[in-house]
């Protein structure tokens, strides 16, 4: 939709398309990478289900908020009182801490094994038991946080940066770049992510986190760019942006001072939720044997090697699996809480 709105016609339907879509996307939980594309806001097709919602209150992007508080301080005010947010933030804080300093709570060596104890159950000093090589499952579970958190944060940062810059510029300038970007994003959405990951990563021999991060950024940015584009298109049509333009603001100033601060909220929400799904994706790829590879300590690798032994030693699988699920859950819950705070419409 690069063509500008006619000033005299109500642009409700269109601006609502772009403002509601990101919210819907987040509202479904996440647009996960595992299950592919969810919404295509700029498809040139009628999106009538949004038309009869035109009267619904907008997310408070940029609008004056009663009580003299801005969107962010208002959201922060809500978040501080939300137990879900506090709980997930605490869990994430803990995970990040042990990702940086695993020695804090685990003084063993994740690589040191004792074959005599292979697959043994819990023992004093080894609460989670031992794995196939006789390595301490507790130590490995703690050290596994580093790989997951690194991949999650780096991939999200990369995808969010690339996606919001490309999508934001496309939404702001429109024209052929916008159309081209839409088609490119469509192409990336046409590839099932797990298949793309298997094909792309199976030719990579390095077992470090960086190929995985690069791949997730490569297939993750279109999702963010759609959200960013939609948000920018909405904000661009607001009166205060027109006012700034009339006062002679240049493109750079408009983008940085007026548009970016007001369009960043949906991107933050989607990126937070995506962080959780990226962690799950990394573990899935590692499980399939193409993501991280030993000697990197990763929950996905440990679950993969434990899954063949599940009849003898279920504890080998359950602990890393629980750690992985709790990590993903914490990030998704955080994104959910942030969305509720930034977009109170859904309450």
């Amino acid at each position, binding site marked *: 939709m690069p063509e500008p709105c006619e000033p005299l016609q109500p642009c409700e339907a269109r601006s609502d398309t772009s403002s509601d879509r990101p919210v819907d996307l987040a509202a479904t939980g996440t647009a996960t990478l595992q*299950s592919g594309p969810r919404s295509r806001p700029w498809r040139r097709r009628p999106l009538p289900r949004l038309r009869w919602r035109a009267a619904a209150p907008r997310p408070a992007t940029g609008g004056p908020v009663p009580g003299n508080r801005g969107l962010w301080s208002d959201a922060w005010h809500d978040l501080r009182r939300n137990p879900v947010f506090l709980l997930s933030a605490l869990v994430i804080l803990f995970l990040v801490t042990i990702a940086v300093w695993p020695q804090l709570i685990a003084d063993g060596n994740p690589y040191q094994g004792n074959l005599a104890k292979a697959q043994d159950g819990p023992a004093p000093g080894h609460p989670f038991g031992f794995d196939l090589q006789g390595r301490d499952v507790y130590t490995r579970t703690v050290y596994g946080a580093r790989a997951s958190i690194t991949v999650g944060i780096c991939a999200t940062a990369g995808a969010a940066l690339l996606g919001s810059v490309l999508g934001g510029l496309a939404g702001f300038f429109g024209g052929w770049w916008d159309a081209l970007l839409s088609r490119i994003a469509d*192409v990336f959405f046409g590839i*099932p*992510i797990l*298949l793309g990951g298997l094909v792309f990563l199976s030719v990579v021999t390095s077992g470090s986190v960086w190929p995985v991060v690069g791949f997730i950024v490569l297939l993750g940015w279109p999702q963010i760019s759609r959200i960013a584009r939609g948000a920018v298109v909405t904000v661009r049509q607001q009166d205060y942006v027109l006012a700034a333009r009339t006062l002679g603001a240049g493109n750079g100033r408009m983008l940085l001072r007026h548009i970016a601060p007001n369009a960043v909220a949906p991107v933050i929400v989607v990126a937070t939720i995506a962080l959780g799904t990226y962690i799950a994706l990394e573990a899935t790829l590692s499980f399939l044997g193409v993501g991280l590879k030993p000697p990197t300590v990763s929950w996905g690798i440990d679950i993969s090697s434990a899954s063949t032994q599940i009849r003898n030693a279920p504890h080998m699988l359950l602990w890393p699996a629980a750690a992985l699920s709790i990590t993903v859950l914490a990030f998704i819950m955080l994104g959910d809480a942030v969305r509720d705070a930034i977009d109170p419409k859904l309450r």
Partner: protein
Amino acid sequence: MGRYVLRRLLQMIPVFLGATFLIFFMVYALGDPVAALFGDKAPDPATAARIRKDLYLDEPLWSQYVHYMGQVFGGHFGTAFNGQPVTELMAGAFPVTLRLTIVAIVFEVALGITLGVLSGLRRGRGLDTSVLLLTLVVVSIPTFVSGTVLQYVFGVRWGWARPSVAPEAPFTELLLPGVVLGLVSLAYTTRLTRTSLVENARADYVRTAVAKGLPRRRIVVRHLLRTSLIPVVTFIGTDIGALMGGAIVTERIFNIHGVGYQLYQGILRQNSPTVVGFVTILVIVFLLANLLVDLLYAVLDPRIRYA
């Protein structure tokens, strides 16, 4: 309507070409299919060169791609390394995965919409909160974890289902794998139904229906649900393609010889014709499912008319 379908079909062409070229590029440019053909042994240079010439692999990538696509549209997907035509592999694999996907979709639609409606109608109460929390938990458990654990609990410990599926893969044996495959989507369907229902419950036409004195059941089913299901239908449409491609993990855990199994084997052995052929079909399925969803809009919502 006809013009709309035509326009959509035309729009699909660049997406199809781009997606298949990307996969083609990854398989043929990043990997070496001729070296893969020889497995662990180093190929004789003269033989390798002859195979390259026979298979057009000495030509530039774009011309290889054009040649490949020409063959695909003639129905020739090439032969796998073991000499079996790829079409034969497809004929064996796609029905199995289709059955698996049907089980998953039926499961997520039936349970997801029911749960979504129940919690949406009781917004903010105990049931609603617990359903929302439960869906979050389900979303955070990756498929490979839930698959392995459920296989262990139901298949091994309790013996309710077969932990490993026979090659023929009848529906009865696919129930557990189907549930595993549809579990994450079930959570999305539930949340989407709930959100959409809650938003539409405030719409004017619902108030009108209430004012007319219609029974509550009729308002919910005929007025509220019909419009609320539109985003759910979109999701399920895109999900069909995603489930068929994402069945790799489930099929690996339960040893189902479907598309994911063949693809996984193909990728591990760098069996290029198999990989590109299967992915091409999956991309087509995915794009057609999206088109079908857009057409379904018109059926579900009479206000939509495609010109």
